[in-house]
């Protein structure tokens, strides 16, 4: 594997019962890349990202810099990747700072006091996501959007070189959606790999250098936003007609109309 390929995904597949949620998938990702994982509902995006995070059983191998993640000690793997699920929860009303500090668990040993680098990581995450004012408040006293940012800060605080986030901007207002996308892009630019499942195609197109489009459990598009999120792809896989528009030379990806249900072709799954 060449030196600049950090993440190697090899024939990863996920089955739930008798249903193939993700068919064998392989790709690699270079360092300092912000990847958007897009596709209609049920395409297998969450299954893929969960398999990468190692939280669901899967076939195939996920390797970071040549080391297979599944073969590592759980703690070591936890230092290499950080995962934020869809609709993340906090079961106890901890103060925001304490919740974010949970991200440092993989780095700390039993009974150890908080080390300066842990405090620094937490502060950095708080600063990045503009949470200073909220740091002392209990998470159940925050709004949905504020809570979402706190939980993302927890994932950032791990300072892992591989960051996997599933719909990180789903419950945020436009200001904070843009803010979070900037934060994720900056994090990738520092040399890390960030893979985010996104529903907002415009955000994906604008902030991500690479887009992986999935449909029906398989990857059907992989490349730059312009290549993957072209009008033909949107019509075929999302069944929507996009606006033809551009801003400052960049094409916009704005689904505008729903397309009528087209008759199923032979052999095609719903």
């Amino acid at each position: 594997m060449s030196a600049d390929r950090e993440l190697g995904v090899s024939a990863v597949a996920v089955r739930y019962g008798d249903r193939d949620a993700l068919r064998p998938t392989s790709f690699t990702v270079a360092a300092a890349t912000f990847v958007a994982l897009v596709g209609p509902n049920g395409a297998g995006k969450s299954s893929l990202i969960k398999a990468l995070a190692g939280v669901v059983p899967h076939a195939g191998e996920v390797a970071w810099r040549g080391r297979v993640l599944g073969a590592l000690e759980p703690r070591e793997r936890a230092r290499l990747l950080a995962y934020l699920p869809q609709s993340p929860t906090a079961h106890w009303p901890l103060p925001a700072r304490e919740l974010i500090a949970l991200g440092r668990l993989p780095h700390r040993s039993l009974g150890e006091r908080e080390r300066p680098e842990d405090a620094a990581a937490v502060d950095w995450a708080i600063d990045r996501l503009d949470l200073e004012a909220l740091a002392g408040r209990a998470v159940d006293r925050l709004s949905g959007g504020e809570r979402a940012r706190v939980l993302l800060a927890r994932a950032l605080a791990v300072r892992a070189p591989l960051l996997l986030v599933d719909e990180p901007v789903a419950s945020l207002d436009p200001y904070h959606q843009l803010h979070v996308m900037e934060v994720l892009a900056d994090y990738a630019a520092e040399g890390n790999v960030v893979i985010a499942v996104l529903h907002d195609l415009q955000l994906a197109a604008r902030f991500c250098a690479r887009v992986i489009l999935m449909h029906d459990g398989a990857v059907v598009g992989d490349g730059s936003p312009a290549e993957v999120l072209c009008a033909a792809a949107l019509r075929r896989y999302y069944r929507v007609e996009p606006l033809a528009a551009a801003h400052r030379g960049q094409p916009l990806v704005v689904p505008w109309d729903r397309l009528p249900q087209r008759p199923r072709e032979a052999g095609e799954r719903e």
Partner: protein
Amino acid sequence: MRSARLYVTLATLALAAAAASLAIGRTSAGPTFGFGGAELADVILLEIRLPRALLGLLVGGTLGLCGAALQGLLRNPLAEPGLLGASSGGALGAVVVFYFGLAGADSLALPIGAVTGSLAALATLYGLAARRGDLLTIILAGIAVNALAAALTSLALNFAPSPYAALEILFWMLGSLADRTLAHVWLVLPLMLAGWLLVAASARGLDALTLGGETAASLGFDPRRTQWLVVGGTALAVGAAVAVTGVVGFVGLVVPHLLRPWAGFRPSALLGPSFLGGAALTLAADCAIRLLPPGPELKLGVVTALLGAPFFLHLIMQPRRGGASAA
């Protein structure tokens, strides 16, 4: 409250309660603060009061610790060993061993029987509730397991050799620290220690579970491993406690709840303080029993139930500050 200060305060309370327990005795005339004169003082202190105080510390600490751990595991403040069947399972195990003549009250077979019963109960609970894992399922499973243990215990009582045997078992189950010996302390101490160690090992996993099972796994803490550490540790420690004292309930529910305002909501931060708080509370209740007017001594389990059940109701009725999701 800074954690060092909290620990010191609670340790002081526990020691004070232990000292009180050593100082309070009970005769036919009611409570007494003496030691029966010079010749008896030695014996009364070392053979009667000391085991009682030590067991109060150990059993109370176990209940507090395991209550806090179970609440952390189930991510809900309404959990405790008694509600989930650990105590009634342990009692059933002890009754079976006792009833089939496998052991007298001093032999190791009794705590082992109790630990087995406790483990069986908790494993059944997990088998019933683990798939869905929401609080309602868990509480219903706890009801089911408790009902099953009670039914099997009733069965044993039904076939008891005499009404006196049935009464003896019933009274034992009400929970008491009275007239236990140092032999009982040495008997249960190794099992309790093993249980405490397992529970302590789950501490960081419990913190990680604050974020849900998947995130905890991504942080390097397999939820199943955390679960079995807590379940196994609780079965060992609570089972051993039940073998010696019968069923003492609600301590594990009340103590973590009382301490959260000071220790915070993070599960690992509650474990140590809950141990000390549980010890203090149990010893205090045991002292209170001995301070009542003359008459047959009230059972400890009755007192903790009388205080704990209304507290439980109050907890349920309160609008709960709890988990929150980002959605």
